[in-house]
């Protein structure tokens, strides 16, 4: 048991190993961190770079902002500088860091000053820290500088202290992931002295604001923040060290109940809530979620405010949160359910989740403040409330002036018109009935009108209807008729009842309608996905998959979609026209190469009109899905992005499935055709050899019989025999060549001695060679060959037969072998007339003979068979004339030698 406690958790070890591997693969990030401008970060970075260069390292300066300071500029001397990229923007030329040049240069370390810098519009990434991420992905180490006010989660705090908001921020993740953080610290008084001496660069246009910034109190506070943030990081380092080295502690550190849930409302405090939650989560080293619960009321918010909420969610995501949008009527219930489902122990929320001025119905039972309802529903959840800033809330609430609002106004007007119409109709209808019915029943008719209006047009129209109906009822029916008299005050009760009924019904209708909408939307989504999955399941070709995917995605996101497939070289192929838009292949390729989404709504070229999602299949990315939606907002909703990701995953899996089906079919086809080829060759071989065998045998018998009788026809029989043998030889050659060329020969490797190969070839060719002199020169200690015995004997036999065929009787044929380096070389030479003029290599072509008109039999297959066999063994053959004074031809072939297994032990 004791062992169990000490034994590290395998998952933790795996994660650790993965992190180590990542660290090794990615470039390291070193941040020079300071409390404010002027503390000397750039100087410190360049100083370190100079020291690094002195040790011979490959350091390159990508960007260094010297701001004209001579001591800093001096530090640049001797360092290699990358030229900046010129970006022309509205007639001005901006100098930007050239990411591609840095990637192409591939130094060991690149210096990129000012991590928080925003790139000029039109750059690949909107932010410089994204450039740095890409450099690190490419395995390049990066050194950079950051000021404390640029850290995303501290942005508010710094803004609160100094009164100046900085727009350029760096996600905490980047800071926390840095391999090393060097704090560049300068005591506040020294910093102020440097400021007075003009040693700190201040942008001229904002000089006064910046001077305000450099007050002693501010600087001290910033210094404290910077020191604290560094200390937190050091603590993190200690913690991860402990996790790595004291495995037992890993479980104690991880407490899920520390996990945070932040509720984003429609107010401007959203960003503040998110940043506060991010800080807390970072301190506790806990995961956190940010959610937005969309109620029917919130759904009626103007477009601009809804977009703001989505931006807040995006901010949360960039700070490391898991984000979600929920559709529900009761925020508290939805939040509690979400918290329980994800095991989140702490809830961070604004003090009120709704508007500051509450409508009277908010005080109805069940409409208690959000926090109290959460407390009641889930006492175990720890609540953290953050006060709202009403002023900024109001400021952040822009007037709605878009189409959606005007459409709503028109709808409302229609509601009022209907209310008035119904009121008039009831009045007209009820007038003749006054004689028959009690007033109590007449009022029921008016109530009915209110209910109908409420059902159809909601609360506002119901309210108006109630008012109109009470007035009409009082005026036309209550005696004294056609007057509003004082005694009619009792009809205030009627009015109140009608109002309440109208509102209740209107509310019920609205939420019912909302639920219906939500259900319909979900059903639509599920149906869309289901239909696509079903269609993809039926698709047999990649083209079909693409077409189905493009259609389904286009329909689901009300836009145009195109799928770009990758070829074998991992290059994306531009799609055919007819997708409704022209996908940017370059950007798609970037998304494919980096395995990240790019384009609209992402961190890479967000200005692009379309979004590019890599299609990740289980084995490798298969292509890119390009989507140009009708509205960019659609892609910012987390649910929609998830839906799109699901679509992309389905398409990717379908493409892969089709791909593997294709591979399987191809394999089957090639197996089948190989089998067919082999059986055909075997059948051919059998069918040709059998009659030849009979022919040879019978002519031999005939010759013997005739010769016994001394008949003259014995010579004819002998000629038949010779021709039959030649034909048999030809057939054997043709079949062998067909086999070799079809690649149908599988080599039976074995250890062979050249002496034996030569011996059996000579024995087989005895009748052919009986008028030649054959000399063999094979040393006894020649190494063994490793190859197919039958085929290599064939090589020897063909070469010897060739030598016999093309030299006059009595010629000397020599076979010699010797090891040469890593191979064994064999020569078959003769002292005949030598090779014909021309390229000797042409002799090895199929059906080529030295002299095409020669009467010497044979079709010229022998040598090409030799070459095919030797090449299959990894060797080759060449022909040449022997160097003078010797005459004749020499055929030289060689095979690679292999280390022979030990023999001596078995003597």
């Amino acid at each position, binding site marked *: 048991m004791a062992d169990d406690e000490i034994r590290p958790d395998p998952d933790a070890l795996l994660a650790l190993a993965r992190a180590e591997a990542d660290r090794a693969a990615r470039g390291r990030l070193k941040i020079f961190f300071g409390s404010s401008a002027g503390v000397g970060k750039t100087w410190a970075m360049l100083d370190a770079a100079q020291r690094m260069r002195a040790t011979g390292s490959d350091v390159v300066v990508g960007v260094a902002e010297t701001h004209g300071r001579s001591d800093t500029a001096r530090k640049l001397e001797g360092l290699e500088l990358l030229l900046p990229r010129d970006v022309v923007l509205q007639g001005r030329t901006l100098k930007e860091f050239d990411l591609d040049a840095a990637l192409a240069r591939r130094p060991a370390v690149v210096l990129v000053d000012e991590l928080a810098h925003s790139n000029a519009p039109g750059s690949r990434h909107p932010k410089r820290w994204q450039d740095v991420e890409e450099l690190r992905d490419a395995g390049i180490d990066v050194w950079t500088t950051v000021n404390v006010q640029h850290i995303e989660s501290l942005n508010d705090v710094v803004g609160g202290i100094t009164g100046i908001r900085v727009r350029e921020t760096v996600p905490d993740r980047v800071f926390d992931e840095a391999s090393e953080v060097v704090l560049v610290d300068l005591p506040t008084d020294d910093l102020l002295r440097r400021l007075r001496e003009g040693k700190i660069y201040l942008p001229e246009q904002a000089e006064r604001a910046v001077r305000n910034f450099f007050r002693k109190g501010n600087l001290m506070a910033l210094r404290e923040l910077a020191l604290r943030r560094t200390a937190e990081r050091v603590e993190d380092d200690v913690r991860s060290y402990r996790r790595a080295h004291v495995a037992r502690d890993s479980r104690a550190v991880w407490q899920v109940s520390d996990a945070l849930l932040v509720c984003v409302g429609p107010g401007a405090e959203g960003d503040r809530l998110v940043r506060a939650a991010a800080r807390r989560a970072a301190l506790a080293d806990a995961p956190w979620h940010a959610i937005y619960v969309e109620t029917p009321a919130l759904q009626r918010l103007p477009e601009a405010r809804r977009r703001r909420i989505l931006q807040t969610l995006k901010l949360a995501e960039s700070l490391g949160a898991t984000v979600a949008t929920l559709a529900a009527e009761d925020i508290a219930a939805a939040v509690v359910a979400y918290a329980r489902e994800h095991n989140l122990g702490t809830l961070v929320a604004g003090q009120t989740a709704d508007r500051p001025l509450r409508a009277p119905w908010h005080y109805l039972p069940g409409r208690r403040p959000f926090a109290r309802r959460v407390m009641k529903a889930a006492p175990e959840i720890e609540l953290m409330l953050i006060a709202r800033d009403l002023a900024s809330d109001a400021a952040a609430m822009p007037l709605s002036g878009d189409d959606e609002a005007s459409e709503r106004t028109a709808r409302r007007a229609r509601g009022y018109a209907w209310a008035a119409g119904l009121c008039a109709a009831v009045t007209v209808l009820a007038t003749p009935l006054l004689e028959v019915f009690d007033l109590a029943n007449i009022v029921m008719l008016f109530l009915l009108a209110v209910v109908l209006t409420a059902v159809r047009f909601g609360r506002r129209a119901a309210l108006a209807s109630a008012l109109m109906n009470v007035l009409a009822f009082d005026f036309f029916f209550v005696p004294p008729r056609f007057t509003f008299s004082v005694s009619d005050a009792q009809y205030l009760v009627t009015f109140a009842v009608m109002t309440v009924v109208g509102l209740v019904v209107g509310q019920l209708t609205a939420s019912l309608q909302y639920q219906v909408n939500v259900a319909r939307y979900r059903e639509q989504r599920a149906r869309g996905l289901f239909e696509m999955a079903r269609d993809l399941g039926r698709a047999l070709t990649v083209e079909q998959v693409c077409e189905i995917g493009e259609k389904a995605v286009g329909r689901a996101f009300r836009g145009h979609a195109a799928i770009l497939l990758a070829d074998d070289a991992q290059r994306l192929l531009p799609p055919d026209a007819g997708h409704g838009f022209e996908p940017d292949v370059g950007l798609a390729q970037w998304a494919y190469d980096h395995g990240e989404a790019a384009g609209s709504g992402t961190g890479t070229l967000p200005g692009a009109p379309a979004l590019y999602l890599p299609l990740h299949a289980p084995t490798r990315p298969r292509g890119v899905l390009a989507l140009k939606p009708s509205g960019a907002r659609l892609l910012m909703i987390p649910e929609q992005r998830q839906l799109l990701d699901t679509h992309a995953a389905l398409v990717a899996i379908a493409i892969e499935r089709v791909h593997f089906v294709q591979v399987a079919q191809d394999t089957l086809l090639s197996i089948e055709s190989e089998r067919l080829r082999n059986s055909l060759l*075997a059948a051919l*071989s*059998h069918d040709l*050899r*059998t*009659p*030849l*065998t*009979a*022919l*040879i*045998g*019978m002519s*031999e*018998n005939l010759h*013997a*019989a005739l010769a016994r009788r001394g008949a003259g026809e014995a010579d004819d029989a002998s000629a038949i025999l010779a021709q*039959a*043998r030649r034909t*048999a030889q030809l057939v*054997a050659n043709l*079949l062998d060549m067909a086999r070799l060329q079809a690649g149908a020969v599988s080599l*039976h490797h*074995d*250890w*062979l*001695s050249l*002496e*034996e*190969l*030569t*011996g*059996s070839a*000579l*024995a087989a060719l005895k009748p052919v060679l009986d008028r030649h002199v054959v000399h*063999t020169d*094979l040393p*006894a200690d020649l190494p*063994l060959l490793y190859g*197919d*015995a*039958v085929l290599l*004997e064939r090589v020897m036999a063909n070469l010897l037969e060739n030598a016999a065929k093309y030299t006059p009787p009595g010629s000397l044929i020599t*076979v010699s072998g010797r090891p040469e380096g890593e191979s064994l070389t064999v020569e078959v030479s003769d002292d005949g007339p030598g090779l014909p003029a021309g390229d000797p290599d042409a002799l090895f072509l199929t059906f080529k003979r030295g002299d095409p008109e020669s009467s010497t039999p044979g079709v010229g297959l022998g040598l090409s068979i030799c070459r095919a066999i030797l090449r299959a063994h990894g060797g080759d053959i060449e022909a040449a004339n022997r160097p003078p004074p010797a005459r004749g031809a020499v055929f030289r072939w060689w095979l690679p030698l292999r280390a*022979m*297994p030990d*023999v001596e032990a*078995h*003597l």
Partner: protein
Amino acid sequence: MNDSASAASAHILIVEDDPGIRRFVRQALEDAGHSVSDADRLQRGLIDAATRKPDLLIVDLGLPDGDGLDLIRELRGWNTQPVIVLSARSGEADKIAALDAGADDYLAKPFSVGELLARVRAALRRATGGHDGTPVIRFGACCFDRARRLLTRDGEPVHLTPVEYRLLALLAAHEGQVLTQRQLLLQVWGPNSVEHAHYLRIYMGHLRRKLEQDASRPRHLLTETGVGYRFVAEPLN
């Protein structure tokens, strides 16, 4: 045809589906003084082998109603008469399979009548005793006395290592017959060495250098390329 009387008048069964081959083989054998019966199918061949009790069988491997290999396996259940296989297939694997299944020798089509008769003679000689009875084999300039474990060449004793001796003795015991590489390795080196073909190459080289006039043109220790080796005391021609 100067063999013993029993070999000259042997009864031979040919199992071969091609009438042309059947005809010339029959004629060649009859000319050599043998009596011949033939069968064109595997089943017929089995029945004839059982009823006619031939001294030797010549079996084609590709028969219309089955594989000649199956016939050999069946036959070896109750019959020890020599079997010579005719093979039109060029694959060495078929020949090895036939030899390992119990065939004594093989002929690849097309073959000559001379070869056929030589193989038949050798097989019959082995079957009727042959050299097994006499411990002394003479070949070329050599004399191999197995009883005295002595090998002389031109009257001079030749030293053989134990492995070389075992190898030569095994080949000589099956004079004229092909022994597959596997059979040789198994019986000379033992079951752990059946994959070690290079032993065979090296020791056959040693033996040839000690016994043959020209090791690169052996007359007695013959290579059956891709299959195995054959010892021949009196080569053709």
